[in-house]
Each structure stands twice: as C-alpha cells, then as structure tokens.
C-alpha cells in the first residue's frame, strides 16, 4: 500500500527553485533514504511534506487523500511526525514535559499522556533524565529526545532530518539500531542523511536530489552505481 505520494512537487523562493518537479512514492513499512549534496533541497522537501511550507507546484497525497498545502498541526494529527536538522527541543521544559507535548495528541488525559511519555522515555533510555530541563542534555541525548518527541505523537510516517550526523561512531550504531526498532513497530520512515555508510544498510530505497531536482531513485546499490549521482557528489558538471 502506498503511504505517501508526491507528483511534480516544487517550491520556489523568489527566483530560486529549491525543490523542482519531484515525484516519488513511499510504501507502507519502508525505510526510504533521501540523499544529496548540501543545498539539494532535502530539508525543504521535508517541510513541504510535513506542512511547515506550502508547495508552489505539484500535489502531495497521504494515505490516498490529497494533502497538498496542509498545515503542520494537521499533518501531525494525521500521523506525520518530523525531526529537525537543528534540534528544536523545548529547552526550558523538562524532558518529560517535552514528550508530553507530543503524547497529549493521542492521549488528551494528563495521566495517560504522562504514562505514554514515560514509556517512550524508557524506550529511548532517557528515563534517568526525565525531570531535568531539556537544555542541559548532551547533543546526542537531545537528538534522541527529538526522535522520542516525534514518536510520542503516535506517527505512521516519521521524517528524520540528519538524525545520525554529528554522532560518534558508537552513538551512530546505537541510533541505527533505534531506527530499525522504530521501523519494526509499523512506522514508515523517510530519512535525510549525508553518511552513505548509514544509508546503505538501512534503507530499502533511496531518492537522490541535486539542485532541487530528483536525479536518481532506486536501491542503495543501484544509485551508488548511477553516473549522475557520482557526478553530483564529486561536483562534475
């Protein structure tokens, strides 16, 4: 079953086409990679899917219905969660309160929201820090908190924006295992990632963007052989 479908999606900022004519579909249960050099439009594309930005062209379908131009809170309510490349935890709130912002979405009662938040804290191994302000966490813990917060909203589609970059190799391996565990709970994942070693073993299929355009799509093995991809990464014309 197709969970997410983009047809000819584009976004212009003045004269700049940040995303230009992108079309692909994501099947339920997949882990999909979204790669490309800096400035390729990956984060912008996430914002278009998750409702933080409106597309200026094309159409987006989620679970069979058209959702082009929906608002961020509507996307979250429908089960699309995202993380940000630059962490955006609510820094003066405690770790538990951060998670409750998300868990209230499916559990309007305070007790249940709290219980769900504690469950997820346990899952991402942050229980010990439940009552500390989020600003005092380490970078790696903040990243985990941001994923946990997205999970707390009860998503069916999770958009991870460079969650694994900037981690030490050990932290990275832990994070890869965590992404697998999340995917095993029937949550479809689209991940923006720079680190090819991460994308290769983890993703079922990969979409490659360059200058806002989709230059390749296929299994990790296929795209890494693709002449256009190699040129884009090595900076050839």
């Amino acid at each position, binding site marked *: 079953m197709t969970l997410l479908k983009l047809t000819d999606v584009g976004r212009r900022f003045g004269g700049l086409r940040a995303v230009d004519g992108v079309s692909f579909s994501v099947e339920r249960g997949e882990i999909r990679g979204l790669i490309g050099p800096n400035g390729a439009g990956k984060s912008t594309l996430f914002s278009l899917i*998750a*409702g*933080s930005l409106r597309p200026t062209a094309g159409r987006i379908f989620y679970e069979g219905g058209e959702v082009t131009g929906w*608002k*961020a*809170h509507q*996307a*979250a*309510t429908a089960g699309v*969660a*995202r993380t*940000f490349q630059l962490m*955006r*935890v*609510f*820094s*003066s*709130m405690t770790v538990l*309160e951060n998670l*409750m*912002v*998300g868990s*209230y*979405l499916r559990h*309007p009662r*305070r007790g249940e*929201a709290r219980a769900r938040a504690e469950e997820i804290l346990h899952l991402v191994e942050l229980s010990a820090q439940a009552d500390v302000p989020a600003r005092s966490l380490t970078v790696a813990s903040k990243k985990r908190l941001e994923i946990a*917060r*997205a999970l707390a*909203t009860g998503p069916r589609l999770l958009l991870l924006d460079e969650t694994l970059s900037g981690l030490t190799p050990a932290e990275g391996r832990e994070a890869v295992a965590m992404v697998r565990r999340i995917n095993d709970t029937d949550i479809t994942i689209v991940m923006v990632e720079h680190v090819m070693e991460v994308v290769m073993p983890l993703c079922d299929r990969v979409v490659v963007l360059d200058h806002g355009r989709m230059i390749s799509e296929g299994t990790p093995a296929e795209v890494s052989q693709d002449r256009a991809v190699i040129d884009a990464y090595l900076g050839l014309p």
Partner: protein
Amino acid sequence: MVVTQVLVSGLLVGGIYALVAIGLTLIWGILDVINFAHGSYVMVGMYVAYFAWSLLGLDPLAALPFDAVILGAAGYLTYRFVIRPVMGKSALSQIVITFGLLMLLEGGAEVLWTPNSRGVPNPVSSHLNVHLGGIVLGGPQLVGFVGAILFTLVLAGFINFTRTGNALRATGEDRMGAAVMGINVERMNTLAWVLGLACTGIAGALLMNTYTVDPQAGVTFGLIAFIAVALGGFGSVLGAGIAGLLLGMVQSLVSLYASQYGLAALVGLFLVVILVRPTGILGVR
C-alpha cells in the same frame, strides 16, 4: 509598627500589580509581542466594573466574572483584527500598533466617558477590614490581594498542569516545534490574548473597590506591569508575579518617607536591575 503596616499595605497592592503583569508576560511569552496598551485595558476593565455598578447596581466583586469575560472577549477581538495582521512582521510595526491601541483606548474613553474621575462609593469589601495585632488590613485592598493571588495560582496551575497549558508553553518556546507536535499555534495565540486580557478585567474589577477611574487611570498600572515583567524576566509567569509583589512593597515603603517618589523609585529599581542583570530576576533568556 508603621513600617510593618506600610509593607503589608504595599504587599496588598502588589497582588494586583502581579496580576496585571502576569497578563502582560503571558502575551509576551507566547507571541513575542509587547502589549503597550495593557494598562489601557486595565482602565477599560475599571470602567466595566464602574458601569456594572452605576447602571446595574452590581458591586465590583459581583461584576468581576463579567469583567473577566468582557475583557477576554476584547482580547479575542484585539488578536484577531489588530495583532494577527502584524504577526511575523517587524518588531517596530508590532510596537506601533499596540501603542496605537493605547492612544485609541484612552482617546475613546475621553470621548465616551469624559475625563472626570468616577468611583464606586461604599463597596461591599469596605466593610471587611481586618485588624491584626495593631495592623489594619483594608477590606478593599485585602479582597483585591486575595482575588489577585487566587487567580494567579489558578492560572499558574493551568499553565503547568494541563494539556492546553503544556501546549501554550511549547508554543512560547518554539512555534514551529509546537506545530509539528500537532498544536494549533493560531489557537494558542488567541488563547494567550484572551487569558492575558481577562487578567486586566479581573484586576479592573478588584481595583474599583479602592480606586477611582478616569481615562488615564491605566497608565501607572501599565508602566508598573511593564517594570514587573522586565524584572521578573520576560515571559516568566512566576517571575512577574513575585516582581509585582515586590514593587508594591517598595513603592509603599518609599512613599512613606518621600511621598512623591514612590513611582520614581520603581523606575529607578528597574534601571538598576536592567544594568546589573538584564535577563531579570528569574529570567533565563
């Protein structure tokens, strides 16, 4: 004994300063908009209580819930038609538009209700004086203080322990982060204005137990609320509350020795704190 009496009286007034300041800091904390017209809404709240007495014969205490609702509705309308169009615009346009509101409300009050002072004679609370070991707690002031503190506690509980309060705080921290958590940020903005101005309505009703109202009556309260918010740390509800109480006591104490300088002392205190600790007493930003 005199000093104790003066400090207690100051504390009682400070309760109302705290309530007005909390309304202001709520709007600032969630929308990053400074409402320069905040004091003018206190003035409108006082007129609402005055007219509830003169037209309907209601005591200011009986008028309090209506005052909260009417000013809350004013908060909705203000956000919807005046503030929302300038959201995301420059800070200057937001300052100019709330300053314009101040002029409009004060000018409008002059035209509609004349510059004369009006008061509610002999309110129910004036029969509630409490004598406590040589100190007199004036009934109107005591009622004002208790009312202000009760409402402040209710508001603090709401913000810290409910779903909507949690969503409000998240919105204040990071609007986009809150939106992707499924929070309707637009609704939170509206709510902040409704609650923030409901505070001025309650303060207005409580103030009519002691003060008279005229179109300029809100200026002092607006200024003191602004000082309390800056002292307490912008956006900190608890900080604004504590600063409000403190300012009431300082003003009262200074007035005892130099009756003209009560307000000047607050502005002086404000300058000192801004120089020494620009983030305010409990501020973190």
